[in-house]
């Protein structure tokens, strides 16, 4: 059995909207994701998918419960350590791409390595390799405003891969793309999953795309209402425990 990369027990998230009004968004979620799994999270708008994703990605802390990320108890970490976790363990892909403006495709891909202190030469070399993987080598000098949505998203995926993270977190990565371009992006995720064994968590509103993944977790009003394993019988048993 693969060891868990994400190990969440009884995760609760509340927001405080004005002093007395505590608003609980996630009501005690248990999620265990083994290494190399391609998970999709689906659910109605406002069901708490992004909120969950922020906790998984160490951008936010849970209000209650325990979260072990790749063996590290994230809730005990200082802010400064959290940025290190995000830098090395997590690769974010956003719906709106979020490339840094006035910064070339290559430099965007280099950015996480820059924060990790990778020397310039190595940085550039690796960034070029990553652009190769997402088939954007010919666009390395382009600025974000010179690229199409699909191209931007491919570069964003390359950037997410820069420090070889344990998990790629993608929050509706195809949401802003037409279905054909979305397909292309989806294919890249499959490629990373198959060829590099990456653990990928994908939030999507598209049931067809969710169907392509190993496992579908459905959220409704901050609760898990279904957690279905597919294709891989071996792992289905584990998750069912």
């Amino acid at each position, binding site marked *: 059995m693969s060891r868990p990369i994400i190990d969440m027990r009884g995760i609760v998230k509340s927001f405080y909207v004005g002093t007395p009004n505590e608003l609980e968004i996630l009501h005690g979620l248990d999620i265990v994701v083994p290494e190399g799994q391609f998970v999709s999270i689906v659910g109605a708008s406002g069901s708490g998918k992004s909120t969950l994703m922020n906790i998984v990605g160490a951008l936010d802390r849970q209000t209650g419960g325990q979260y072990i990320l790749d063996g590290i108890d994230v809730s005990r970490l200082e802010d400064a350590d959290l940025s290190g976790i995000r830098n090395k363990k997590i690769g974010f892909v956003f719906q709106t791409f979020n490339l*840094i403006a006035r910064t070339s495709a290559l430099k965007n891909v280099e950015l996480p390595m820059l*924060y990790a202190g990778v020397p310039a030469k190595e940085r550039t070399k690796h960034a070029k390799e990553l652009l190769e993987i997402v088939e954007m080598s010919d666009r390395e000098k382009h600025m974000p405003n010179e690229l199409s949505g699909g191209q931007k998203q491919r570069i964003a995926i390359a950037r997410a891969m820069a420090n070889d993270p344990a998990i790629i977190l993608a929050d509706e990565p195809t949401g802003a793309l037409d279905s054909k371009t979305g397909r292309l992006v989806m294919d890249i995720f499959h490629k990373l999953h198959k060829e590099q064994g990456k653990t990928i968590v994908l939030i999507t509103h598209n049931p067809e795309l969710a169907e392509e993944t190993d496992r579908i977790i459905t959220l409704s009003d901050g609760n898990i209402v279904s957690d279905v394993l597919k294709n891989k019988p071996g792992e289905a048993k584990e998750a069912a425990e």
Partner: protein
Amino acid sequence: MNFIENVKLAFASLKANKMRALLTMLGIIIGISSVIMINTMGSIMENSVNDIFDSQGGASLVGFQITLKPNPVRDYYTSNDLMTEDMIYNVAERFSDDVDALSLVYGTDSATTRFKREKLDLVVYSISPGYLKQSMTGVIKGRYISDKDITKHGKVCVISDKQAIKLYGSLDNAIGQTLSIDMYNQSYDFTVVGIYEYQLTGMMSAMVNMMGEDWNNEVYIPYTTMAEIQGDSDPLFFYFYVNIKDGVNATKFAEEVKDYMNNRFYRNNDSIEVYYATAEQQMEMMGEILGLVSMVISVIAGISLVVGGIGVMNIMLVSVTERTREIGVRKALGAPNSAIRTQFIIESVIICLIGGAIGIVSGILLGNLVGLLMDATATPSIGAILLAVTFSMAIGVFFGFYPANRAAKLDPIEALRYE
């Protein structure tokens, strides 16, 4: 995050908002450029003041003049109050160990001379031989007014090289010629015995340039001759100058002479005494004036630097707000707070440094523009430039810190959500 990347990034973001960046820099530019301008002008002034004093015998020049006593009975002079030749020669005799040259100015009179069909203006200086020795003009052909000219009331004169060429064609030709000087409704013939080099330095030439007047019309004659022309058998003086010998302490000498003269000649005078001015004092006074001007400009510079700094802070706050989402993304990619802070501080420092650099260049140019009036150029001291650079960096750090810190402390999720 490494430094060069930050610098490149800062330039990229400045390039995206060139006009805004330039306007932001304006305060810094004005501030730094005034500091540098003062410094440049200061060294020009200093050089030129030194030039003048050097050409007039430098620090060795001491002047004595009559002035009102602290509690005078009357506030006007009578002919009894003025210094006589005897008094002055007595002083020169008494202090002969210290005195190198003595110069008397009996008066300066307007006169004219006829040249072809023109009437040329002259200014006639009635002086003693020492005057030409200590004045800024040196005799380049012929001789000075001599002691013999003084005793004999000789009708001789020393003219400028420009006059010589204009009136007689060449310097050689001028010596021995007769110059007819028309004054006091009569014409007097003087023999040209010497020619001085016409030159104006520093501040003098600045004044001349400003007034558009050419001062090469000075003619020097023995003061005794002028006294005779005016029917004055006992010439009187308001003041006289002394060039002291090397190694003599000007102030001590001046005090001694003053006391000597007041004791000997002015003890019984109810209202008048002798006072002195040394070149050193004059230079100090110039220095004080310059210091005052510097202070005023420094205050202006200080104010514009502070205003400029606040402008930088303001624009950095705007920049942080505009780039909230970018900051969120950077944090999601793993940028620690310190990296975000550094990024924005470097941007603010670069705005200030560019402003500072423009300020330094324009300050040197402006300073030299003023210097142009004085026929002098100067560069500010390296120290001043270093100070300006350091200061603009400090402003960048100081006024950039608050916005940068605000960026660093943004909550990543809030920042990512920012529209």
